[in-house]
């Protein structure tokens, strides 16, 4: 029978399928951060349970970590401090591999894991974090779980899991010069909606997806969850193998050859059927900017902001009305007339070296507009060090940007970096929900290059005709 990649990974990880019950799926890798793990460790302690495979775990500290200075001494919030200390103590007690705040390898979990080659094609990987979908870029089945499930994986190395439906999102053709993986992600979500992928695992395919770098693929899969999907997947190919080869946790020697052979067998079979297929033409994807309070409320940068009258659906009409009110925008307005306060480049979506290179390219020799605060937060210390080795930090600083320490930072604003009520941001992160970046804060999602240009203009610009 012809199978999709998802079905192959599923079949190879099925431990038990009880009659009338929920299947048990084996988990190869568990990723952790400080926010969603403490209650799971507590549960383990109460039941006197041990972590089944401590070697399957990689942990970092990212959500609560300040960006102003490196090191634990910067933690002034006593509750955040306790959470960080609890994480360190738990990892120590259970013998887990933790990149502590003080480690040169620390950073945002979904940036750090690929840097070390910890997740491979064909694996099942989980984390108490919805953006675990990122690792689907490697052809691994990777998804977010709740804390009870984190505890379940700790104790059993499995999950009780229902099989998802499959959706293929095919992006054929070539992207135009200034359209990026982020623009593909936003365009897909704009097309299917934030609940369009609910119940599905999405496999991204097509020429434009094949042409993405590993970092671009990570950006795309990262936002599969924003389309409601359980996970995103991209078939492993030479780009994947080249990225993984030589990384710390990648197979070595004879194992490498065997692994590559196995990984090549994972791609969806010719003729395998998906439960749904969505097609996009890459050439038509313009730089995207969200205008509302849901990632599906997104438009081409040169399109007018829509209003309730532009939607037929009753719920979408209501959503547009309340989003415009919250965002302080009017239907028909142009994004190039919208004044910005804060620009943020970072997060597990767009905090990698290529993101900072793309932004620096546009910032070279330019200055941030008056009244704009612009913050660059590398996704990890490896990204930060690499950027500094290339002199990118200087370009940012000379343009008037703040060059900060790695953290999740303003993506979810847990670490003190946040918008004040009414402030408006252009942000390379993944969610523009009400209050996501601070109560009353207004978030517009976009690509790193678009964010860089916006910092100079003080408003959104169409970088396709911007010098």
């Amino acid at each position, binding site marked *: 029978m012809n199978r999709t990649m998802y079905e192959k990974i599923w079949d190879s990880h099925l*431990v038990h399928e009880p009659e009338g*019950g929920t299947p048990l799926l084996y988990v*190869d890798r568990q990723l952790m951060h400080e926010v969603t793990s403490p209650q799971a460790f507590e549960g383990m302690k109460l039941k006197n349970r041990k972590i089944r495979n401590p070697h399957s775990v990689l942990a970092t500290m990212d959500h609560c970590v300040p960006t102003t200075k490196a090191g634990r001494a910067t933690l002034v919030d006593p509750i955040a401090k306790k959470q960080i200390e609890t994480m360190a103590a738990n990892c120590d007690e259970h013998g887990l591999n933790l990149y502590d705040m003080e480690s040169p390898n620390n950073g945002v979990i979904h940036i750090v894991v690929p840097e070390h080659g910890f997740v491979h094609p064909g694996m099942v990987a989980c984390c108490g974090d919805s953006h675990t979908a990122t690792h689907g870029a490697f052809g691994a089945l990777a998804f*977010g779980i709740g804390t009870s499930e984190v505890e*379940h994986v700790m104790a059993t190395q499995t999950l009780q899991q229902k099989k998802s439906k499959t959706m293929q999102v095919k992006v054929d053709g070539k992207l135009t010069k200034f359209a990026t993986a982020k623009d593909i992600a936003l365009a897909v979500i704009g097309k299917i909606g934030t609940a369009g992928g609910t119940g599905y695992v999405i496999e991204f395919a097509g020429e434009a997806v094949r042409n993405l770098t590993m970092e671009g693929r990570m950006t795309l899969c990262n936002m599969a969850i924003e389309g409601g999907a359980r996970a995103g997947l991209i078939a492993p190919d030479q780009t994947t193998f080249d990225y993984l080869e030589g990384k710390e946790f990648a197979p070595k020697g004879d194992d490498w050859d065997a692994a590559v052979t196995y990984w090549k067998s994972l791609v969806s079979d010719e003729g395998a059927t998906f439960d749904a297929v969505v097609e996009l033409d890459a050439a038509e994807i313009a730089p995207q900017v969200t205008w509302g309070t849901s990632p599906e409320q997104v438009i081409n940068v040169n399109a007018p902001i829509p209003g309730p009258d532009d939607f037929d659906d009753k719920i979408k009409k209501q959503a547009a009305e309340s989003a415009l009110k919250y965002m302080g925008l009017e239907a028909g307005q142009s994004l190039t007339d919208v004044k910005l306060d804060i620009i943020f480049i970072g997060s597990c979506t767009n905090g990698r070296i290529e993101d900072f290179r793309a932004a620096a390219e546009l910032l070279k020799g330019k200055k941030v507009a008056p009244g704009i605060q612009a913050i660059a937060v590398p996704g990890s210390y490896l990204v930060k060090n690499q950027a500094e080795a290339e002199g990118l930090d200087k370009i940012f600083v000379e343009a008037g940007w703040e060059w900060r320490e790695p953290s999740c930072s303003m993506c979810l604003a847990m670490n003190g970096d946040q918008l004040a009520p009414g402030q408006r941001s252009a942000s390379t992160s993944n*969610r523009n929900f009400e209050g996501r970046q601070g109560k009353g804060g207004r978030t517009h999602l976009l690509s790193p290059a678009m964010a860089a240009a916006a910092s100079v203009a003080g408003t959104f610009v169409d970088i396709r005709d911007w010098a």
Partner: protein
Amino acid sequence: MQPYKKHTSIAALMDRSNVDTDQIIPKQFLKKVERTGFGIHLFHDWRYLDDGITPNPDFELNKPAFKGAKILVAGDNFGCGSSREHAPWAIEDYGFNTVISTSFADIFFSNCFKNGIIPIKVTPAELDALMAEISGNEGVEFTVDLEEEKLTTPGGIVINIEVDPFRKQSLLEGLDDIAWSLKHEDKITAFEEKHKQQLPWLWK
């Protein structure tokens, strides 16, 4: 986890779609290392005025008619966004054990069952009818009978609750999922042996 028993309780109405986990429990409350005490922060940004303490009289759940509600009826795509289990912890701690909507985000949906909450999926027409009944009747009480898989209202609406038999049993008995899975430990071990032979590099 408390066993889920048949109950007749006030149904509260939240006529909003895409209620996301950042609204259910904003990030500033995610720093705790405990599982309890999140109820007072449920829907914080909507529920309180700018001082963060005074209840917002315009927020639907602050209406006296919804006091003590155990059933929450809300618009499409409830619980979208992050995987934070703090969302169902807050919902449960506030006093709800039932959420009704036309659709739920996947991770939120699974998280509910681990915390004694049943998320009930209904059709758009059923949702409209339930919402109309709450809007038209002060303090209306619905009955949820999980054993019989029925939701009934005084207005005569009867909805079949579609629930996976395994999850139903877990809810009714308040079972520990981990204990159930560990009953299959021999199968997990056998799987690991096979996996190790096939993909040895995963274990090095």
